[in-house]
């Protein structure tokens, strides 16, 4: 469904995404596991086409189509959407309005279901603005609910667990699984091994490149052993980077 081929992005001469290869298969939850600063959010932005990020090399193919020159809206209309790590607050736009925006025109029943799935009581939230009066956790959950209302072909979830209290994590995980069950493939970007437990496959990211791709348990263990204790974050030294990338490509 999504294929990232030899993708590069340099910002101010510094490589942020460095020859990345990644494949998300139709119907899967694909985790991208990486420490802070490894390029996770940049990858999300490049796929969605936001923040003025344009690849300096390589291709992003969605359902076989090169989406590199498409606007954000066009990518969304093709079936890609993004739940932001820090979603914007918009004064005067209610939760109901926000969840109604997707082309699917979900009615109030569907919108209420989506809110309930992320653990929010519709009666309390439908008329609230998605502005600064919401807590960070509430705004994040509304972001996920809006993706559920949209039901994109590919949902990019950027650190969906950040700012979410530990009690709400199971609700979050089950709602992501429900989203997947309803037909959305998911690119789940996170630094948490717990989150990728629900993934079908996981890719480990370092220095803007995918090091390895494999089953969640195996990748989490590898990540814990190699990345969490690594003193060379973004400068992998345990094997040659090119060797790891080659392996990653083969396992993708």
């Amino acid at each position, binding site marked *: 469904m999504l294929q990232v081929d030899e993708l590069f992005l340099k910002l101010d001469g510094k490589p942020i995404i460095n020859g990345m290869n990644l494949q998300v298969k139709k119907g899967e939850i694909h985790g991208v596991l990486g420490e802070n600063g490894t390029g996770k959010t940049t990858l999300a932005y490049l796929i969605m086409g*936001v923040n003025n990020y344009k690849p300096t090399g390589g291709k992003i193919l969605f359902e076989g189509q090169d989406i590199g020159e498409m606007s*954000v*809206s066009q990518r969304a209309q093709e079936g890609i959407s993004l739940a932001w790590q820090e979603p*914007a607050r*918009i004064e005067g*736009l209610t939760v109901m309005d926000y969840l109604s*925006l997707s082309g699917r025109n979900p009615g109030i029943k569907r919108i209420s279901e989506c809110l309930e799935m992320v653990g929010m009581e519709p009666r309390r939230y439908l008329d609230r*603005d998605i502005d600064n009066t919401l807590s960070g956790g509430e705004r994040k959950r509304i972001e996920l609910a809006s993706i559920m209302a*949209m039901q994109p072909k590919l949902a990019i979830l950027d650190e969906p667990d950040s700012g979410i209290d530990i009690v709400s994590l199971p609700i979050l995980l089950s709602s992501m699984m429900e989203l997947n069950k309803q037909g959305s493939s998911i690119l789940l970007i996170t630094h948490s091994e717990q989150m990728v437990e629900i993934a079908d496959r996981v890719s480990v990211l370092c220095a803007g490149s995918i090091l390895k791709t494999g089953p969640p348990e195996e990748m989490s263990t590898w990540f814990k052993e190699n990345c969490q204790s690594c003193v060379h974050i973004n400068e992998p030294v345990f094997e040659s980077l090119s060797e790891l990338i080659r392996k990653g490509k083969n396992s993708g």
Partner: protein
Amino acid sequence: MVSGSIEKEYAGMVEAYEKAGGDKDSLADKDTAKIVIHENKVLSSDGVSGIKIETKELENGVDVRLIIEEGVKVKKPVHLCFGVLPEEGLQEIILKVDARDNSEVSVIAHCIFPNAVKVIHKMDADIEIGINAKFDYKETHYHGEFGGIELIPKAKIKVNKGGVWQSTFALSEGLVGKMDYDFEVFCQEDSVAELIVKVYGKGNDDIKILEKIHLDGAGARGLAKSRLVLGGKARAEVRGETYGNAPHSRGHVDCIELVNGSEARATAVPIVSVTDETAKVTHEAAIGSVDRRQVETLMARGLDEDRAVDIIVKGILR
């Protein structure tokens, strides 16, 4: 009640009132206090139990006195409808409001100038909110597309102990023209004042806004909030001033001006001052183009860029 000679004018005002978003049934409702004024003519003036409305026609406008009796809690909003329907005209409204102790009322004012090419509308209001009284005032303008209007609304408001004044001034339909808004509130002990202005400037609109709150009584609270969107060659200067003069008084000035176009100009001048060591007044102002992150958030749901900007602008002015 409407007399025969002014029926036509009244019908014209009601039609314009409805087009401007007013509820015309409320103007016919016997249980609703209301005034309809066209230029310097009082077309309709009805009080209800607990509300007295007195009017006096002047050479260029109308002197209006509105009294809410002590302890009266008015169930239905009072409707005020001011307007000038011809292309040219001058309307001066002298408004005196006396909301007596423990009263509660909501007032909805519609100011309608749909054909204005050379119209001046002035309002000089002198308002007193009694002890523990609550007054909610919403003023919405409808200006048409010619922009030939000069708008000068001025009000001095005294809010007595425990009283609440909330006002919202909204002008997003049609061109603003030239506007000089000046509302000043004096808050006594434990009283509350909220001034909100929402304006959409377009064309060559020239907008000046002054929201001034004096927190003179202990525990008084004030909010001066403004939301402006400017397109075309519109210019705006917003002054939000709050003075914390009394113990434990709290105030906040909050201004957002969105500039949507390369030729519009926006200025914000917040003044916050305290003369008591336990008072606290804060301010925040944001001026600039529509936030890119907000636009992209909506685009990521499939909206095109223009529609996304439109939703953000409407949200700010809602």
